[in-house]
């Protein structure tokens, strides 16, 4: 007695045991009923095998795709880990003055520096140390920003502890001054200040009767908006040239939008792991930048 052996692929293609066709030669059974039963079981086995293969195939493909995605992420994380180690080493070399090109900074290009700090990261000791580094580098005008206004609340303490600074006054001109000027800002000086300035403009023009419902007519200009913002906020400095972000996330955390149109933005990492070398590198990179518009 012989049997025909059919591969599952052939069975899968045909789908019905009546349409089975042999692909490999075996031994045919002599009796029809035996052959029918055998074909039935082979078909059942083949169908299950096909189903398992299909299910397993999908699962295998899914697993492979997930593995590829995770491998990609791991590779990128390893690359960034290596880059961070290289940056830490470079920062150490810069701090010790071992890299020649960072020795002379054209600090005069940096008229106004802004520092954004994550509110949860606001340790006054770190802030004072950072200000001391900036004073040593010759930076004259600094704006300190945090979203919650913690630095604003601690401004008296900071000014007391850091002897080399005064509060930025509205009429201060950005010239060489003996002491560093400090401005403190928070989220309320951003979007909410724009809303207050909008009301100031609205009231002014309501009284003058200049507002009309004609859609195409421009009633306010950017310079009027800028003037209204200065009036509303008070002690508002100019647009910073460079914005350093100290925090886990690369975002400006609501620094007044009106003031960072063309500001260079550098992410420095968390404040607690700030490095002098990284600060020098950020300022150096700014001095090498070319802008086609603005300052």
């Amino acid at each position, binding site marked *: 007695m012989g049997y025909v052996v059919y591969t599952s692929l052939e069975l899968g293609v045909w789908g019905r045991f009546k349409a089975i066709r042999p692909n490999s030669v075996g031994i045919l059974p002599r009796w029809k009923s035996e052959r029918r039963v055998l074909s039935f079981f082979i078909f059942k086995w083949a169908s299950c095998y096909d189903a398992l293969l299909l299910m397993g195939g999908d699962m295998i493909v899914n697993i492979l795709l997930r593995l590829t995605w995770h491998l990609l992420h791991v590779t990128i994380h390893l690359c960034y880990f290596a880059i961070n180690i290289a940056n830490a080493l470079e920062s150490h070399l810069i701090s010790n003055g071992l890299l020649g090109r960072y020795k002379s900074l054209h600090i005069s290009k940096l008229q106004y520096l802004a520092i954004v700090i994550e509110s949860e990261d606001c340790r006054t000791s770190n802030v004072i140390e950072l200000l001391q580094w900036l004073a040593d580098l010759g930076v004259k005008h600094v704006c300190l920003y945090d979203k919650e206004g913690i630095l604003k609340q601690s401004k008296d303490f900071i000014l007391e502890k850091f002897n080399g600074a005064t509060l930025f006054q509205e009429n201060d001109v950005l010239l060489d001054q003996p002491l560093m000027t400090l401005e403190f800002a928070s989220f309320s000086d951003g979007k909410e200040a724009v809303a207050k300035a909008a009301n100031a*403009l*609205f009231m002014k023009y*309501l009284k003058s009767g200049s*507002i009309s419902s004609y*859609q195409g007519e421009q009633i306010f200009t950017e310079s009027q908006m800028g003037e209204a913002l200065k009036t509303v906020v008070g002690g508002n400095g100019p647009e910073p040239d460079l914005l350093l972000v100290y925090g886990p996330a690369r*975002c400006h955390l609501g620094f007044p939008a*009106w003031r960072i*149109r063309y500001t260079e933005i550098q992410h420095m990492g968390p404040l607690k792991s700030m490095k002098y070398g990284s600060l020098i590198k950020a300022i150096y990179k700014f001095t090498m930048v070319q802008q086609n518009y603005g300052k």
Partner: protein
Amino acid sequence: MALLNLIIYCYELGECMTVLAKIAKHHPIKVNFAGNLELLNAELRDEAHKLMGTTAEYSKFIVTICVCYCCTDDIVHSVEESSRKKHYYHSYIEDSHDDDKDDDDKDDERHMIKLVDIEKNMYMAVTPDPDILIRTGDEHRLSNFLQWQTCHSLWHHCLQIAWRLVYGI
């Protein structure tokens, strides 16, 4: 030279709109144009409005293209619109409630422009604030683009967008 660049820009924008219109025919993509479209020539403006109208019903995939847009202009435009609406409301309230003198404080609050009014009237109100902002060209500044909307957006800068996009996401 500036005029030549402007003509090239308008021609390329027109080409861009033609390509978008062809894509929109076969794929359910909603197209928004955000910005001061009054600065475009009439033909381009009509094309833009037509494309926005044709694709308005789709919601699965939305593409917003900023044309004649900068953030400070968006803020000023929004303040103007809010002022016009408040002026109309103020005039209407004054005309219809002349006898109501007791609620002066409430009236003052209603006449004030709030932050939500400004955000509602912005060109970029058609789309939510971005989660990620990617800038190509290895520049580290926003160049007057979306600094209002990107308070809490992560931003990346890169020379080549493809692999950085993978990491950013």
